[in-house]
């Protein structure tokens, strides 16, 4: 068996500052060979900076980058075995599609016949056959995107870096390109490192996602784990929809937190990381997080499940979303009367505005985080 430790990209303790601003701090990541790995975060979180450091377009102040057991962070961009796809494609406007794709090969002194066959190969791969004589400005956004990708692939890089490559495309084309990108990556077995601010895109494409916030990595996990077991408040808020319920901590034991919501209602949730609120119980306020599709609307005569949390409320809005309905209701019977919660349900048709509803949700799927504000 091959030493799998050597077949990867290892980012060790990367730090980067701009003047007095910290752009990246303490980044440690291991990206496996053949993995579709996304760096996900809001703008300014440092994800693009990290990608540019990997490409060699910027240098880190501290830290090391290892590729298959070789240290590469001191190599200039042109000597790294990576190629990048830029957000606005960065196609050379004075060169034809063919020459754009052949650019790297010509610099390497590849023989003309070989260049021809390799360019034709990627042109076919990207369904661009017949476009080789065109100038970039005469192509649509989607076609330019393909040329940019073809240009990177023609060099046969071991790893492709993609900086929000789909951000400039319209919705329909973007969805199409997402599928294509994923299929292409699987077929070629290349490592893709993909920067995006679009959580749905990251979920759809990635084997694993690193969520970044304010220059730090918050969580590295598969899309499912990220959605179902977010490790921080930031991740819970950034990825997917959620309900937040503000209450007062009553009791804590072995990873569970009881929260009082109003006078009578007690809710139970799982604490992630250190249990929040070091202060006296009964004083500390915190938030529970629960996904809308985890709220189950109970019919009038149904009994709630054993040990589940229940809340009652009045429906204020029902939104039909095709495959499901979104029911928004104002919680009643609690101190925080203004709390609005939403539930995704298949049976929205039976619920109308003004109805009283009871919902239940499992404590297993109710999360509470340390360090949550308020």
């Amino acid at each position, binding site marked *: 068996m091959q030493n799998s430790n050597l077949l990867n990209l290892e980012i060790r303790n990367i730090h980067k500052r701009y003047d007095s601003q910290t752009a990246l701090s303490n980044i440690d990541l291991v990206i496996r060979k053949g993995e579709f790995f996304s760096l996900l975060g809001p703008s300014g979180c440092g994800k693009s900076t990290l990608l540019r450091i990997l*490409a*060699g*377009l910027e240098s880190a102040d501290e830290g090391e980058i290892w590729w298959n057991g070789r240290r590469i962070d001191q190599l*200039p*961009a*042109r*000597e790294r075995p*990576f*190629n*990048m796809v*830029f957000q*606005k494609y*960065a*196609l*050379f*406007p*004075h*060169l*034809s599609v*063919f*020459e754009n794709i*052949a*650019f*790297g090969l010509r*610099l*390497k002194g590849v023989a*003309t*016949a070989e260049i*021809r066959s390799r360019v034709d190969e990627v042109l076919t791969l990207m369904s661009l056959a017949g476009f*080789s*004589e065109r*100038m970039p400005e005469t192509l649509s956004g989607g076609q330019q995107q393909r040329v940019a990708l073809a*240009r990177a692939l023609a*060099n046969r890089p071991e790893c492709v870096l993609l900086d929000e490559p789909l951000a400039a495309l319209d919705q329909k084309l973007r969805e199409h390109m997402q599928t294509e990108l994923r299929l292409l990556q699987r077929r070629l077995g290349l490592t893709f490192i993909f920067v995006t601010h679009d959580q749905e895109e990251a979920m759809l494409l990635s084997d694993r996602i690193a969520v970044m916030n304010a220059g730090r990595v918050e969580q590295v996990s598969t899309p499912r784990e990220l959605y179902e077991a977010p490790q921080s408040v930031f991740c819970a808020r950034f990825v997917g929809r959620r309900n937040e319920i503000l209450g007062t901590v009553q009791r804590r034991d072995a990873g569970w937190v009881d929260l009082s919501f109003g006078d009578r209602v007690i809710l139970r949730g799982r604490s992630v990381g250190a249990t929040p609120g070091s202060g006296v119980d009964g004083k500390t306020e915190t938030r529970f997080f629960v996904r809308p599709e985890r709220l189950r609307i109970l019919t009038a005569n149904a009994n709630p499940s054993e040990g589940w949390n229940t809340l009652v409320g009045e429906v204020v809005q029902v939104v039909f979303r095709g495959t499901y309905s979104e029911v928004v209701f104002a919680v009643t019977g609690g101190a925080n009367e203004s709390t609005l919660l939403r539930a995704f349900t298949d049976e929205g048709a039976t619920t109308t505005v003004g109805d009283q509803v009871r919902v239940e949700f499992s404590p297993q799927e109710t999360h509470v985080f340390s360090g949550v504000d308020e």
Partner: protein
Amino acid sequence: MSDTHKSRRVRSRIGRLGWVPIVWYALFLLGPLFLVFATSLASRGIYGGLEWNLSGENYLRSADPLFSLILWRSFLLAAVTAAFCFIIGFPMALAMATASATARNVFVFALAIPFLTNLMIRICAVKSLVAYEGPVAHFLLALGVEFDRFALSQNLSLVLYGMISSYLPFMVFPLYSALERFDFSLVEAAQDLGASYIQVMNRVILPSLRRAIVSGVLLVFIPAFGEFVIPDLLGGAKTMLIGNLISEQFLKARDWPFGSALSIVLMLILAGAIWWIRLFDRPMGRPRRPA
């Protein structure tokens, strides 16, 4: 009634304004040009008048080797000026385009000051500096350096200095405005694909700027070709250039027909040069396919 109809009507109304420059152009450029051409076919009367005998004699005269030499000299001066302006202007434009916004304004302003100063004032300032009895001469004398005081006040370097400093803004401004719009991620893309700094320059930056380079070269070359004031004042009026030659035909020799013929020849040469230079203003990099 669609918006496109409306906008088309507005556009056609605006289009009519196009006649104003066309009339202006016909009256004040094509008209005089025609007069010059007509004059070039006449010949000089005994007292400097015009005799309308319609001959190509003046054009034959302008083909004289003596005049060819003058033309060649003028061409050389213009070409060298344009080349130096590019060599000096390109790094300047690059530095300006990549500077911070405030620094840019300072640079643009600094470049514009000499441009806005009258040519005579600038030349006289230089002349008074290097004059026979000027401060540079006295300084060198005080140091005990041996030199020709006369050659110091008028020489080829001074002419080139005068030409370059006068025409530099014409090169820098087009380059600067192109570089300001230049997408520097192209540089990163090229580096990522394996280009060294020199390759980035030769294969990406310069080819992307070819349109601006062509405009800059033309803007410098064309007026520099006919320039005679700067060489006269800083070069000591020793060398005859095409500009001097033409002005002398009109002002001193009173040979308007020959002066006109020379002007037409100069214009033809410049038109040819423009046509030739514009050949570079084309998309390049068509795939070179193996046979």
